[in-house]
């Protein structure tokens, strides 16, 4: 069976670190960074990238539209 794999790209300097994507992700892919962006916010990043299924839940939840979602079938 084809395996679906996803990845997200976060617009780091647009992110306000609200963490809604982190809670929305069904695969626990995302976390907030230790470092901060230009605005002083910790930003979302893929802590466990191998678990991403490209479902876009994170991007739907992001109030600021910071997340691009990619998906492939292997």
């Amino acid at each position, binding site marked *: 069976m084809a395996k679906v794999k996803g990845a997200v790209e976060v617009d780091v300097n647009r992110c306000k*670190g609200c*963490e809604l994507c982190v809670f*929305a992700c069904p695969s626990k892919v995302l976390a907030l960074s230790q470092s901060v962006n230009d605005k002083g916010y910790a930003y979302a990043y893929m802590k466990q990238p191998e678990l991403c299924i490209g479902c876009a839940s994170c991007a739907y939840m992001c*109030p600021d539209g910071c997340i691009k979602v990619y998906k492939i079938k292997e």
Partner: protein
Amino acid sequence: MNNNIIAPENLVYQKSSLVKDNVMHYCPGCNHGTVHRMIAEVIEEMGMQDNTLCACPVGCAVFLYKYIDVDTVESAHGRAPAIATAMKRLHPDKLVFTYQGDGDLSAIGAGETLHACNRGENIAIIFINNAIYGMTGGQMSPSTLEGMKTSTCPYGRDVALNGYPMKIANVLAELEGTCYVTRQSVHTAAAVRKTKKAIRKAFENSMAGKGTSIVEIVAACNAGWKMSPHEAHLWLEENMFPFYQLGDIKDK
């Protein structure tokens, strides 16, 4: 590994091109941004970018015109339905909608809202009900829940003193002029998708001349409620949804 996934041909989702690149002034996690994104997606998918007119509110969304790339008019507080009435009557071929908070729509603008709905103006009203005046520092609004603390009822809303929380969408559903009244939310990805569908339907009703559509979004103002964005969503589920029940109120 991710490097070969992240390629233009594999892109499945990104913000609508109608959401401008400037950073929205909203507090981190504010539901206004999510609703703006869904409105932009619907307008883009309907191909109506050059044929949409929005009446913006006074409230936190006062700068909506800076974020969604369509023609907008900034209304005086509560007067968006009156502005939208004029715009739709003069330009019946345009998609016309208002975007209003609970203070704007159900307090100072209650008269405009009721009468636009009663006249059955062919407009869509996007109503963000966060039960508080967000912009001015979290004062009580008509939709503040009983017992809910705000800066003007620090011990909680007392119905003997402040009256009952108002389900204005249910009142509007009683009016002959409304064709579609629904209550949605954006606290989960599934809920965001449902809200988008409701906005699409309201916008299509405006174009079809069916009457007034109201999409209420029961929303969180995490800053005003003094919670983290995620906590505010849990609070919403626990406290707002039992009173402001989600789902269609009217669909004719």
